[in-house]
């Protein structure tokens, strides 16, 4: 998903206005599904990630239930959010 050498856009820019489709591990289709559920911005997904106490299993299960992410997508998304939290929180 994210080339670790390349500065990831998610980590680099302000989370404020990043639409959820920019969680590049998820892609457009899943992004749409999340938006329908009310998770329209990346920071809302981040919020859910934090509420689930950054637990990998819980978050990935939630992601799978909410938008139908497969194992790779959920793993990447989780990794992305965890990276961000490690860097900025």
């Amino acid at each position, binding site marked *: 998903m994210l080339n670790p050498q390349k500065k990831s856009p998610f980590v680099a820019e302000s989370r404020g206005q990043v639409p959820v489709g920019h969680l590049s591990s998820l892609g457009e289709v899943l992004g749409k599904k999340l938006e329908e559920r009310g998770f329209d911005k990346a920071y809302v997904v981040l919020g*859910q990630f934090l*509420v*689930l*106490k950054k*637990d990998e*299993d*819980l978050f990935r*299960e*939630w992601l799978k*239930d909410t938008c139908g992410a497969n194992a790779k997508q959920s793993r990447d998304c989780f990794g992305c959010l965890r990276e961000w939290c490690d860097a900025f929180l």
Partner: protein
Amino acid sequence: MDDYAVLSDSELAAVLRQYNIPHGPVVGSTRKLYEKKIFEYETQRRRLSPPSSSASSFSYRFSDLDSASVDSDMYDLPKKEDALLYQSKGYNDDYYEESYLTTRTYGEPESMGTSKGFRQPSASLSDADPFHRQVRDDNLFSLEEEGKDRERLLYGRDSAYQNIAHYRPISNISRSSLGLSYYPTSSSTSSVSSSSSLAPSWLTRRAIRPEKQAPGAAGLGQDRQVPLWGQVLLFLVFAAFLLFVYYSMQAEDGNPFWAEP
């Protein structure tokens, strides 16, 4: 699953805590997830053991699980145990032993004696012998259960079960002796809880695993016959030998003939 909808957020959190399911706050977005987790947990628990005995087995399970550590290890080990069983004794032994056992009804002492004697050569099962009788004890009382318990029924009194695949109980012993569930579960937490909810009949066999790990291959505590460094060393020796042969076979410049002309 709708039963949980009537619980308030804090009540739901209390249930999660009771089942030792790792969780965060129960809020609007997480509620459905936790309801689902509780539902899955209870379904598995109901499937694996009767509700009355499960409560008592929990505390036992968790104390024994201390040595179990990570779930991935727990998942790997049953397969390794099975692999060892395959290798160490071969198929025929298992068939022999199991057919011998299933033809005997419970309560005949000579059957246990002879079956024990028969099983002597099988290294990995010799540990299971003292527990076997207790296993049969418990199995007789669990006849009404479904699912995984079906396989344990193979030890039951009913001789009609004789001709069911004989090998399977062995593998179940090995797996159950590790006290592990081999139903695939979606999350590691529920697999931990499900393994903890196995019927108490496998309780006594749990101790096999710490015993078996002690005499295991040196250094890593894994199921290796030859230690890893030994394997690498052997490989290097073999490679060096091959290189030696290769270079010695290369033609040398100079006189190939022994004798001076």
